[in-house]
């Protein structure tokens, strides 16, 4: 195959990511379960990359978790999305960053629906106006939060203080990437690398010195399942699917998992704890789990931010083995402190999953 033809094919797997001036939409899960992550993300974009990002206090949930759990009509979520676009317009922005893979899938689906069914977009314009008096135009550019980190990964590579390598040997760390189903499985052309070769996180691993782990269940769902997790008695669905992934990746002895989606980060972290409690099984070395970080947590760590200031103590799987491998200095005594060094109590210990 001629090189130009190959390039043409790969163009279908690229994606337009605006250079600057973004409106930021928060995630329900990320801001609760990893409460330092979004602040860190904005700090990296603004202070490390010098980008303009607007954080709007009027913005709300896209309602995607309720929608995908089957309790909201399509019209309702489309109109909530339309309100977010109206807020972006009012703030004077044209580029929209979504901080959640579920939301990203929702926004793309709504835009695609309107493209193919203009009469539905017209109906939503009317619904939004009737409900709020607002009008809207769709964004010129809509991306997932990790897409921006990917776009500027080489610029960040120039700034990072630690590469993704063992401090002791210089060998690359073995890193699992988990993209999240709604990033590219619904509309493959909207994700970097599509559904077949998603590169949004793998690109970070490559640029920052690590080694990708390619394991059999790499593309399998984390097991969120929306209502299957929300309802307590249905959670076997969720943990069983995560376990399928852990069992599949374990023989490759990964040092780290990085996840694209707030929900996936949460499940891959917490289900390791649950599996350890239920089956006394752990997937990391010496009784630890495999640390699970978000892309901005990884960037922050490599940029030299204090691991406890960026919230790594809010993960159930201990981050310390990763810090040791990377040769990152940390103060164990500062881990469970509040503002201004206020000493707090220490969390209880899991029965089997080793923590620090």
């Amino acid at each position, binding site marked *: 195959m001629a090189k130009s033809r190959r390039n043409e094919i790969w163009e279908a797997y690229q994606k337009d990511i605006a250079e600057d001036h973004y409106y930021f939409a928060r995630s329900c899960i990320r801001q*609760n379960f990893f409460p330092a992550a979004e602040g860190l993300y904005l700090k990296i974009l603004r202070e490390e990359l010098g980008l303009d990002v607007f954080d709007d206090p*009027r913005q709300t949930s896209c309602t995607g978790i309720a929608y995908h759990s*089957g309790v909201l009509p399509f019209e*309702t979520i489309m109109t909530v999305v339309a309100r977010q676009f109206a807020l972006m317009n009012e703030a004077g922005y044209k580029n929209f960053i979504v901080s959640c893979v579920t939301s990203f899938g929702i926004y793309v689906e709504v835009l695609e629906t309107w493209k193919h069914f203009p009469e539905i977009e017209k109906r939503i314009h009317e619904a939004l106006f009737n409900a709020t008096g607002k009008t809207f135009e769709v964004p010129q550019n809509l991306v997932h939060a990790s897409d921006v980190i990917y776009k500027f990964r080489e610029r960040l590579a120039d700034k990072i203080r630690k590469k993704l390598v063992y401090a002791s040997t210089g060998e690359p760390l073995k890193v699992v990437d988990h993209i999240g189903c709604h990033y590219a499985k619904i509309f493959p052309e909207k994700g970097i690398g599509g559904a077949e070769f998603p590169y949004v996180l793998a690109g970070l691993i490559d640029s920052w010195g690590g080694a990708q782990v390619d394991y059999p269940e790499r593309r399998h769902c984390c097991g969120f399942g929306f209502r299957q997790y929300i309802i307590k008695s249905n959670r076997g669905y969720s943990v069983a699917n995560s376990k399928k992934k852990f069992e599949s990746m374990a023989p490759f002895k990964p040092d780290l998992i990085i996840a694209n989606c707030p929900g996936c980060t949460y499940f891959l972290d917490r289900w390791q704890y649950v599996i350890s409690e239920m089956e006394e099984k752990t997937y990391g070395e010496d009784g630890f789990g495999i640390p699970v970080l978000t892309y901005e947590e990884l960037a922050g760590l490599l940029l030299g931010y204090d691991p406890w200031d960026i919230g790594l103590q809010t993960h159930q799987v201990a981050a310390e083995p990763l810090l040791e491998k990377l040769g990152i200095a940390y103060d164990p005594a500062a881990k469970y402190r509040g503002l201004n060094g*206020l000493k707090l109590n220490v*969390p209880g210990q899991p029965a089997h999953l080793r923590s620090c």
Partner: protein
Amino acid sequence: MKNLYDELGKDVRYREGLKACINCGICTSVCPAAEVSDYDPRMVVDMVQQRNEHTLRELLSSDTIWKCGECLSCKTRCPRGNVPCYIVQALRSLSIETGLFAESREGRKQLVVKRTVGDHILKYGYCVYIDEVSLDGYPEQGPVWEWLRENREETLARFNTSYGKEQAGTLRNTAGESLEDLKRIFDETGGTARFRKIEEFSAQKAAETGKQFSEGRDEYFNMLNDGEE
């Protein structure tokens, strides 16, 4: 009762989701729900494709349509451009609209979804909120979450969040004006009516069980959530 297929045909997700299924089963082979249960998206599409009102009614009244996890892995893989998950989304909507959701054990659990992530949207502006996620309801959260919740004033201040404040930032209080916008959007677009239907049909079923039914995490909610029906 209206013709169910006429109603289903009004849903764009049904029209987009069902082209012509050749029953190859690729959707089932990649389905995480099929991995852990007897769910079979190929069978769902095959049943819907028959265009038999009786079969459709049975499907809407069954546990089957509630077993999908909406990961949409099936959309990527179908060689004929069908989307079993879109069909399921349309079936779930119709099941609630017709009240048939209350005829199945899994369908009745939609009350739990409505009273958690659903109600949270109108109360907090987000589907999830730290104050509502107790270890009792979510034991898998583990000791670190318990620690974070116990110390949330101090830890969330350390992380420079806006918890409890009306300003931009993580975990801020959503302003009343935004919550009113959401409420009016729900009223205008059928979200409020959908919630009401879930409550009304659930109340009828709760009366049959003799369980206390009012609001929030009442006796009937706990029975459904714990799977003890």
